[in-house]
């Protein structure tokens, strides 16, 4: 359903992604783990073509793009098929929650206004913001803003939703409400790829875990395999460090 093959990306001389190959099935929830700088964000951004890969192919659904020769139309198609939830929400500041969600439906998908509004209200209600339709981002808490961000992605009905550390900019007491929403849409069978450092969440919600380091996929598998019995030394060390930090933090 999503197939990345041999994706490479360099910034100048710095090769950040090296020959990444990854398949994601429909309805799968993929969690990407890895230390800082391992290329997780870059990988997600390549999928949404916010970053242009130097090489490789991306296939989402029935649409395949050869990154070397991607044209405007290819990029547009890819972006229509995926939606991104950003670490810092990136809401349109001059638009209300409802307008944020409607924008893509009206401007890009050319839905009639009434229909777009109806769908947007539905989605905002689903993320628990039915009472905040007319609030501007500056009037919402971080958790509420991120839920608008999720609604904005969800409303577009994409084939896959990409989450880049959706809770890492939030106050701890607001993390739960956002994770609840992500869990809820995961259970609806929507395909998603999530970069996160929330280990217990990753374990509970994912059915495919990918561990990246130094721009390559070191190991991937089912959550109980990768968390329970990691094969690679680097994975073991990462998990050990991150769980001991976690214990320490409590």
């Amino acid at each position, binding site marked *: 359903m999503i197939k990345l093959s041999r994706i490479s990306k360099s910034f100048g001389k710095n090769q950040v992604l090296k020959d990444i190959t990854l398949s994601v099935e429909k309805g799968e929830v993929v969690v990407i783990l890895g230390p800082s700088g391992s290329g997780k964000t870059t990988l997600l951004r390549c999928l949404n073509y916010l970053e242009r890969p130097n090489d490789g192919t991306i296939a989402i659904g029935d649409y395949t793009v050869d990154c070397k020769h991607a044209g405007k139309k290819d990029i547009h198609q890819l972006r229509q098929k995926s939606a991104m939830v950003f670490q810092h929400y*990136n809401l349109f500041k001059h638009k209300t929650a409802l307008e944020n969600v409607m924008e893509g439906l009206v401007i890009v998908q050319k839905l009639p206004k009434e229909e777009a509004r109806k769908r947007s209200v539905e989605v905002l209600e689903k993320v628990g913001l039915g009472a905040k339709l007319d609030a501007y981002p500056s009037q919402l808490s971080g958790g509420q803003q991120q839920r608008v961000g999720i609604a*904005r992605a969800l409303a577009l009905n994409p084939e896959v939703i990409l989450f880049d550390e959706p809770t890492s900019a939030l106050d701890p007491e607001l993390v739960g409400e956002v994770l609840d929403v992500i869990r809820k849409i995961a259970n609806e069978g929507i395909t998603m790829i999530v970069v996160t450092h929330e280990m217990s969440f990753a374990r509970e919600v994912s059915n495919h875990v990918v561990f990246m380091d130094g721009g390559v996929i070191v190991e991937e598998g089912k959550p109980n395999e990768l968390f329970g019995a990691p094969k690679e030394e680097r994975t073991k060390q990462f998990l050990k460090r991150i769980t001991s930090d976690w214990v320490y933090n*409590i």
Partner: protein
Amino acid sequence: MGKKFDINYVLDFIPKLLSYLDITLFIVTASLVFGLLIGFLVALPRMYNVPVLKRVSQVYVSFFRGTPILIQLFLVYYGVPELFKLVNIDLSRTDVLVFVILSYSLHSGAFISEGIRAAVNGVERGQVEAAYSVGMNGFQAFTRIILPQALAISVPIFANLTIANLKDTSLAFTLGAMEMTGKSQTLGTATQHFIETYIALSLIYFVISTVLERAFHYVERRLLKHEKQLVQHGHRSRKRSLWGKPLVTRIEEGG
């Protein structure tokens, strides 16, 4: 110099000067309109990093920001006709107002292009990326997301420039342009009551500047309505999310 101070002359001069207000306002408006046009054209190569044009616009901007408006007036008034002589076009009969407006337009254009750049840069890159990620193209992202916010940001810059221009037009009299300050000179000479003309003049400029300032302030508030915070959320949670350190759930990255 002049005759004994007489307040009645001030009252007498105000309506006489006001009859030239339209010319002053015409200079201001025309130079802002052309300045906007120039400012946009000049800002583009710098925002989109066009190699040679970028340098040209940089030189233009720093020249018109770095030299006194009075010198620019003289340069345009005496220099432009010389340039046109080279191609056998005679500008000696052209109205002085044309040169005045040209000078102020070039001057405003330099400031406006800087304002546009600042305002566009003031809209976070992340919002543009979000626009792309919902499938907008560059034009849609610019007109729907960047422009409305950039306009709101640029209102105070534009307000300052308008008021500065209003006051700067008073220098046009040095070229013999008959606007308010030019008129005050002839009134002063005719009556020998110079102080009174200056008082009348400053009152007029002051009132107009104040009105303009209020008007811009109103527009700014309207355009920035999305920045108003609700009291119940307030600053606490925003500050906290900036400084607050994750305690429990979030696991810090290693390394």
